[in-house]
């Protein structure tokens, strides 16, 4: 699975219709270690810019990231 660093993030409280049941939830843009960026969701502990994350799942084409252990 892919790993990278948080480029930016937000926690969404006001969600679109399809995601209302998930709110609040965190989305991120991750700068991947192999290059390029990808937009995904965060599972578990909230993450901040420059923190390391690892992809733990993919659902419906969306990557889910978790804070990486130091």
């Amino acid at each position, binding site marked *: 699975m892919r790993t990278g660093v948080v*480029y*930016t*993030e*937000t*926690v*969404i*409280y*006001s*969600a*679109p*219709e*399809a*995601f*209302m049941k*998930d709110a*609040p*939830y965190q*989305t991120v*843009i991750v700068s991947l270690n192999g290059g390029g*960026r*990808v*937009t*995904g*969701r965060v599972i578990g502990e909230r993450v901040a*810019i*420059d923190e390391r994350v690892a992809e733990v799942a993919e659902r*419906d*084409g*969306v990557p889910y990231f978790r804070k990486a252990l130091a």
Partner: protein
Amino acid sequence: LVNRAAIRFCCAKRYGITAALERPESACIEAAPRYVVDNEAMRPVAVVAVGKTPFGAFPDRGLLSLAVEAGGNCLGNARLLPAQVQSFYLGNFAGPSFAGQNHLAPYVSMALGIRDVPSTRIEAACASGGSAFFHAWAEVAAGIQDVVMVVGVEKMTSQPTPRVSEILAGAGDCSGEMRAGNTFASLFAMIARRHMHMFGTRREHLAAVAVKNHANGALNPMAHMRKVITIEQALNGKPIADPLTLYDCSLVSDGAAAVILAPLERAAEFTDKPVRVLGVAQASDYVALERKEDITTFPAVRRAAAQAYRMAGVEAAEIQLAELHDCFTIAEIVATEDLGFAKRGEGGPYAFAGCTALGGARPVNAGGGLKSKGHPVGATGVAQICDLVMQLRGEAGAIQVPRHSLGLAQNLGGSGATAVVSILGAV
């Protein structure tokens, strides 16, 4: 005659506007404009009429009724009959989704009594109105038609907020960022986070933009929300997407706006108060935010601005007032940087210091902006032109700025995939 106009257009395209080399991906920020416009090949163009509806939530008004009111007001603002309009552009983002009606351009133009002429809808997300204005200008400047009308309209409040968010999300990358659960508020929240991280921009800076635009909107009888707010209120608003609160977000509004363009040499036939279009340019970028190298700046705005400044022969420092696309407070801050009003990274303190206030050195969004005046998406870019024209004519009433001979409008689509920058000057 048709052939001559067509040939003139081809010549203008071929010789007047010459495409420069593709910019390298990495040099996007300070890159030279992609097109060099030869002013000699273009006819000077003037705005000869403006008209609007108030912005707001109007449960008993449909899209057509709003568009016809703005168009009618506009025709009444000039010595012009509908039959004299030779081409029609409609700026509209999502009429089919919001109002269940497609084929909107002739739907509106025929209702205005503008018959038989080319009638074209332009969709470029929140820059639909600005883009429609740009295309209308190009048609007049190239000599294809003399009298061209632009109407921008959006009817949004008939849908509940979560559905509105979903429809607006269609202006983002629906196979990536939006599928992950983002909204436009969350994309701009991510821009704000990065801007804060890189430049030390604070939530108080964002709040200052909201407070200023609410104060201006309170003076504007055409504004959707005429309510003064405090910094504390803005900071403690309902969270939407961190760090943005309700007060950082523009409004969901109904409304329409219209302008009519004509060659400057014929402007006196239609009005005693023409306003000159000195420069206008449109540029584009990736739709997906993640594809941008640096999300704290909008390269499309920088490119469009560079071209519009060059066409107008003016510099950023000379602009006296501006209508900027404050879909979110951070967007106004970034716009002031991209347009060269503030240095890069200093847009926050620039707003906080009051430079953009009604009594400041260069008032921004004197009428309240998208934040307070309202943001009926397809109408916004056209309404910016209307408001600028009113200011340049000295007809803006309670929101009139003191120095008003050179103004700029900046209209942004999505998270920066379309940008239109227009520079207008009093004649």
